[in-house]
Each structure stands twice: as C-alpha cells, then as structure tokens.
C-alpha cells in the first residue's frame, strides 16, 4: 500500500515535459502557446473562486481581467524563468502542470507568501468546536474528549482510504456517514439527495467504502503474517484503482505477483480475504480492545453502525457473509436489551 499515491496514477498519461532547459521551454511556449494558455485560463477560472482568494492579492490587479494577467505571467515564467524540475512534483512533469494554479501562484509570490495569503482568511478551529463548550461537567467533558479522539482517528483514516483506493471512495464514505458525522459535529442532517444510480447501487458503493475505511481504521492490513487471501484482497481493494466502477483492481491481475495463476483461485482468495476482514470487523464491533485508542465502546458502536449488509452483494460473500451480519444483528440486539 503506497502512502505517496496520488489521484490520477491509474489514469492515462499526459503529454510529458522532460526537457526543462530554458531553450526547450521557450520553444514549447512558442509552438504550443495556445494550448498552454487554454489550460492555464481554464484552470485559473475554474479553481480560483474570487470570493475565496482574489488574484489581486497576488499582484494581478493592473487590468480588469486578472485571469488573463495571471495567464500571461505564467506563460512568461514558463518561457523565461528559473524552473527546477526537482522542485516540481513528478506527477506534474507534463502539461498537467498548466492546470495547477497553486504551483504558479507560489512561483509568483513565493511559497511562504502564498501559504500566508491562503491562511489569512481562515481561523484555525479545533475539530470538536461544535460540541457545546458551555458544559463543564466531567462526564460531558469525557464525552467530548472521546468523540473528539474518534473523530481525529477518522479524520486521519480518510486520506488513507483515498490513497489506498480512489477519489470516489471518499465521496461514498462521506455519503454513508452523513448521519454519524452530524452527531459528531452537531449539525442537523438534511434528507440526502436521491442517488444518481438506483438506490441499491448507491448503498452498495457506500457499504464498500465504509467497510474499507474500517479495515484501515483498525489497521487490519498491518503486520507481516497475513493470510494469502488477505494479501490478494489488499492488492485488489486496498491499492490505487481506476476512479470508476467496480472501484477495485481486477483480482486476477492483482493476485499474479503473489504467485496466484488461476483466475478462479484469485477470485476465491479475494472473497475469502474479504470474509476474513469482515469477520475481524465484527469482532471489533463486539470487543474492540483498548490497544487501538481510548473509549472502546464508541469505537465499537461506530464499527457496528458502519457495517452494512449490502456488502454481501458487493463481494458475493454468500452464506459466510450473511452469517457474519447475523452475528452483528445479534450483537445489536444484545446492546439494546
């Protein structure tokens, strides 16, 4: 599982810029100037909302068309300025760099000033700010602290979900946790938008994202002694994938580096891996232990609430999966009684 995974790794390649000498850049600017300007213009227009950060703060205030000023400046910078490719993220050694206003704004005013401009309109707030601070009761304070710890662990896990899968998985997780997050942060939950696809399709996607999040939340992929089935599952479901259905890497391809040759074996192994991980999640819902953070009851409840039955359909888990959800239901029954 790569920590440096960035969106777009599984996507088609962009036009590469491999010669960063002044001469080569000047030639690109002349020969492909319209292409570069079109990209700069589209991205500055799309990604910079004037309400949030005004281009005037970056010195683009000489005319009544700050976007065109910015585009001109960037073209000039690219064609004649000092650009060190070692300072530029490798994923942007391509024409994609011309869709990165943040890079160019930092070039204009320097990285530090750019960061300062972005921060100046924003107050830093604590994650648990919305919880009523008026109460000073110990139990209430405990409740605040515990939810706050759970929240911060959740906040840390979400970018890992992103890095381990793809962008839409984050969307599905956010959709699936609207109610829970509303409880954490104290907002009233509006009725959710009707899903674009059929209800069952949307609920399957959410169930999948919630499950994968839990696996990362509970660090179930850490450690060397993982069964082959879990390794196959990891390569398929916890490695960067295309940002489109089914949101995983084909099990046969994923399992090949692990020495699994037959497609049917790969599929079976992945299913077994999911069942094993789901079983571990159900265990945590019952008895989370204390080594993985404070306030185990809240973590257990969070786990139970984000395990959704449609996961059985997502991975075609069959009776093994149904059995685990029956256990989970029994657990919920116990808690209520």
């Amino acid at each position: 599982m790569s920590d440096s995974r960035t969106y777009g790794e599984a996507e088609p390649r962009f036009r590469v810029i491999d010669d960063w000498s002044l001469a080569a850049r000047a030639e690109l600017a002349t020969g492909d100037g319209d292409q570069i300007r079109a990209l700069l213009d589209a991205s500055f227009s799309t990604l910079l909302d004037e309400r949030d950060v005004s281009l005037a703060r970056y010195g683009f205030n000489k005319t009544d068309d700050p976007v065109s000023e910015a585009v001109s400046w960037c073209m000039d910078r690219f064609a004649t300025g000092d650009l060190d490719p070692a300072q530029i993220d490798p994923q942007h050694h391509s024409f994609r760099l011309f869709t990165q206003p943040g890079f160019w704004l930092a070039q204009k005013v320097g990285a530090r000033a750019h960061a300062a401009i972005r921060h100046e309109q924003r107050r830093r707030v604590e994650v648990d700010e919305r919880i009523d601070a008026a109460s000073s009761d110990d139990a209430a304070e405990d409740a605040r602290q515990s939810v706050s710890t759970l929240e911060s662990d959740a906040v840390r896990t979400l970018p890992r979900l992103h890095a381990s899968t793809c962008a839409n998985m984050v969307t599905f997780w956010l959709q699936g946790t609207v109610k829970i997050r509303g409880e954490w942060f104290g907002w009233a939950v509006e009725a959710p938008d009707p899903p674009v696809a059929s209800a069952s399709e949307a609920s399957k996607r959410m169930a999948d994202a919630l499950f994968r999040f839990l696996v990362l939340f509970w660090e179930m992929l850490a450690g060397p002694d993982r069964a082959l089935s879990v390794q196959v599952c990891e390569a398929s479901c916890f490695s960067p994938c295309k940002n489109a259905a089914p949101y995983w890497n084909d099990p046969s391809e994923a399992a090949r580096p692990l020495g699994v040759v037959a497609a049917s074996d790969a599929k079976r192994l992945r299913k077994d891996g999911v069942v094993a991980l789901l079983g571990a999640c159900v265990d945590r819902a019952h008895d989370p232990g204390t080594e993985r953070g404070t306030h185990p009851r809240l973590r257990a409840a969070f786990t139970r609430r984000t395990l959704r039955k449609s996961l059985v359909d997502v991975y075609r888990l069959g009776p093994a999966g149904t059995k685990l959800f029956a256990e989970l239901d029994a657990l919920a029954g116990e808690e209520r009684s």
Partner: protein
Amino acid sequence: MSKELTPLELDEMLLGLSEGDADEQWARLVSDPVGDRRWAAAVLRRAELDALVMRLHAHPWLAGPLWRIRVAARRFRRDASAGFELAQLGSPLFAQLGQGDPPLSVEVAAGETRVFSVAAGRVVEVRGVAGTVYYATASSFGALPSLRWKMEPGESPVLLAVAARAGRDDLHDTAALMAAIDAGEVLAAVVLEEALDREISR
C-alpha cells in the same frame, strides 16, 4: 466556524499536493455537512481539467478558439442568458436502448466552451440563434446553414461556433474565426466529441 474548503484546496487534496495543510484540510472535509457534495464536485472539476489536457494534446487546433472564447467572454461581458440551445435529435431505436441518455436539449450560455459527447449517427441541432453557425474540424471549416450536424465516425472533435449577429457569414477558416472571436463577434462554441461505446460492466 471553519471556513469551507475552496476549489483550489480540494483539488490539491485530490492530487496529494496539500503537504503541511493536509491534516487540517481533511478535518474540515469530515466536519462539513455537505462535504460529500463538495468533494464530488471537486472530483468532477479535476476530471474535466484532465480531460481538457488530453483533448488539447490530441487536437491542438482546438486550443486557439477555446482559449480566445474564454478571454472574449470576460472582455465583452455578455449577458449569460444570451446563449443558444443545443438539441440532440435521437432516433427511437437509440432512445429505447437508453443507458443514462443525456438530456435532449441544453442551454449553452454566452462565452461557454462546453464539451458534449454525441454517439456516431446522432444529429445535433442549434436553436435560437440569429447569427451564422460555423463548424470546424481538424481538416475542414465552413458555415452551417442547416444548423444541424450529424456525428460521423472519425470526425471528432467538432467545434460549432455561433456568430453573435446575423450577417457575419464571411469567415473562411479557423484563423478568421479566431479574429472574429477576438473582436467579440462570436457568442459561444461547443465541442462535440464522438461518444465511445460503453463497456459492458462485469
């Protein structure tokens, strides 16, 4: 109250470029009641920008007109409602196959440069315009008095540009079109791309 994540911040989160700001940005996303919609919108924006990079790489001739239309839209500050309608004339057969068919007609606002995916064989029609409609491909250019374009395989992409007023029917090539754009004579344009067959999902 924490400030909502900006489009630029969301884009940088998507691309893994947040560096020191990352923890704080993800906290703001998780605590945002409409975080899912904001993130989804950011994913779409990045997908469209990436698609533009690929499209202009494959068809560099599109860059000049598309860039100039954006600039002219800001300079001439047209009323956004002064646009036109683009309609897709579908055959009943295609309508029945309908897998998430796109809407049959859309409003294109002045200054826009939108891209539409059109299946080969389908016809699009420009409606509600007074000015001449021009078409441009990599190898051809001309006026479109019929106001209809049939998507033929292999011609993609096609630029349809609408002149701002009647009588502007004297443009002969893309260079002339670009000069007209710079002079504020072009209302808007659309790019038609041939829709690829959908893969049957496994």
